[in-house]
């Protein structure tokens, strides 16, 4: 199976696991969902990354991950503001 297909399947399974546990806990939280998705995709990209070449799909995923990291920074800043506002 190609890496590209395998990574998509693994990511899908990871998101299903997150969703199921969120439903079991009666707690649908977009922030938690986003952070767990980011962790999942970081692990997947790290595992499927190649040493000498950079396929186009992997480059696009890396752009996505970079945007996710910036968004994660925004969430961290928001949490800091919430703590300070208390």
């Amino acid at each position, binding site marked *: 199976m190609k890496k590209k297909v395998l990574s998509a399947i693994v990511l899908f399974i990871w998101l299903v696991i997150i969703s199921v546990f969120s439903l079991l806990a*009666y707690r649908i939280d977009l922030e938690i969902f986003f952070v767990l998705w980011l962790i999942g995709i970081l692990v997947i990209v790290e595992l499927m990354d190649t040493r*000498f070449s950079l396929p186009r799909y992997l480059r696009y995923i890396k*752009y996505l991950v*970079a945007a996710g990291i910036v968004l994660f*920074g*925004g969430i961290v*800043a928001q949490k*800091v503001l919430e703590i*300070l506002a*208390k």
Partner: protein
Amino acid sequence: MRADAKYALIAALSLGVLLALGLFLSSPLLYTLEKDTFPSRFHDNTGVLKMQSLNSTTDVLPLMQDLLGYTGPVVVSIRSHDIAQARRDLELFAKSRGSLKNLIVKLDMSQSEMQEFSNSKELQQQLLTELLNSSVSLDTLNNLEIRYRDENNPDMLMSVQYEGDALRKKVQELYNQYQVETGKATAIGTKFGLDTTTEETGLVEFEQYVKEIDRNRNQQDELNRAIDIPIRRSARLSFLINPESGVYGDRIECFGDYFSFDGYHVEGVPGKEVTVFLDNAPVSSTITDELGSYKVIIPIERIPAGPHSLYAQSGTTLSDIQTLTVQPVGSTTTISVTRPDNKGDVTCTGSVTANRPVRFAPVQLVRDTTHITETSTNAQGQFKATLRLPEGRHTVVARFSGEGFPITPSESMPQVVDVSILRIIPAYMQIIPADNTFGILLAVAGILLLFAGIAWYYLRRIPGRRSFDLLMGREPSPPGTPATDLFAPISAPEIEPGAGEMRAPSGETFQPLDEMILARYARILNAEGLSAAAWVVYRQFAGRVAHDLLIQRHTTLTPRELCHSCIQRPFCRAFSSFVSTYERIRYGGQRSVAMQAEFENRMQSTQSELRGGSP
């Protein structure tokens, strides 16, 4: 990161997740109806909502209807002097009210009209209990009044009458409060479609009871006028007060003389103990002086507002009864709360002031309208208490009830205290001061910049590169790479005339001339050895091959991958042989003279093949 290390890490993380899941095996339901707290208003537990709607119709309304039916019979029993029945009804009322209160807490309806109904019922219960006690006291006083009237004892009769008047006034106040609370309960009951007839009947009965006790008082006044009061005593005790009315903090001067009749001679009696009574309770005591006079100062402090009887007694001799009228005054309660310390402790200080500081008065510190801490003022009318607050936002209020004082109740302005996690953590760990806006903005900008930097690094990162070299914009050298800048532009004397030029495929700079390859090979061979020289030659050939095959990033390919790529080209055989020798020198560590000769042979053959295949 090495591949096996990656797999080890992911395996460790997976094991960690499985272990964490194992901890919840015994109680897999993370949120229960009993512990149902949500971090924001966007989270709702539909199960609880369902139960709320079910219980509000099946449990709450019948309970409310029951409660509406209790108050009327209680008032009727009190009016008919059936004290035992009234007590039983009140007990049932209290039990039923407790059930409603528990249900409201259970269903989390503390902000609803049902909570208001429950509060009204609680107040009604308190008012009816006080009415019951007052009714019992009034009955007792009536009996005493009859007895003293029979005994022709005007002093005790007047004292009892004063107490009776105070009780009647209290019953009138109870009625006024009861009317307000009944109005609230009836309005809410009507809104929910409940029958409030019994509640309204109770109010009417209460009103009749108040009128009844007033009527009794007037009849007794008529009777008192007919009492004959014979005064035959051998000793007399005079008693006067000044002033006859006052407010909180005033000092009432009580004075008089103890004298005896000896025929027509009147003589003061020294050394007699005289006790002054306020509402039949001793308040002060003194001894008559050599002339038989005495004087006592009574401050108005813990004396309720209204008329009070004052008299003096020495042995069996009683003085005349004087009436002291205490006027009520308004009060002001203040509070200030310090910032919470590391443990969440706050110090509440404040004062209770009427026309002057209220001394030794009980003060309630109410936190979030639910938690009450009792304290009291000192001799200067000030109080100080320490509260430990949990994390969160709290409201603290100081309340002076005025009970027992001739002072109206008062409450301070609510003080909001914020006990955040920043307060609880030690001060030296507070990197960002919470009240510094610039610092906060700087911190937020720093966080955003940090994560933007991480994202940038992530995009620029290439596995195998060292981050420092990347940040400096330099490609790091693999081990064994010659220190000489092999790809630097070649100076003019090095370039022989007539040599052709070749452009690198992707910005790769390499020496295009065959002669130059040999010259550089010789120079680096002498300077840094065979391995470095072989690497230089390989890079030159690889550049040519990549150019021929239109490979954009040939540096990412291994020598063998490059060989596989050029398999259909005429120079591939020679290039593969060259790569084989190159690998033995470079990676196999074979640096003998024979190996050098073989390398140079293959280099020349590859060079000639490449020259033939070049455009």
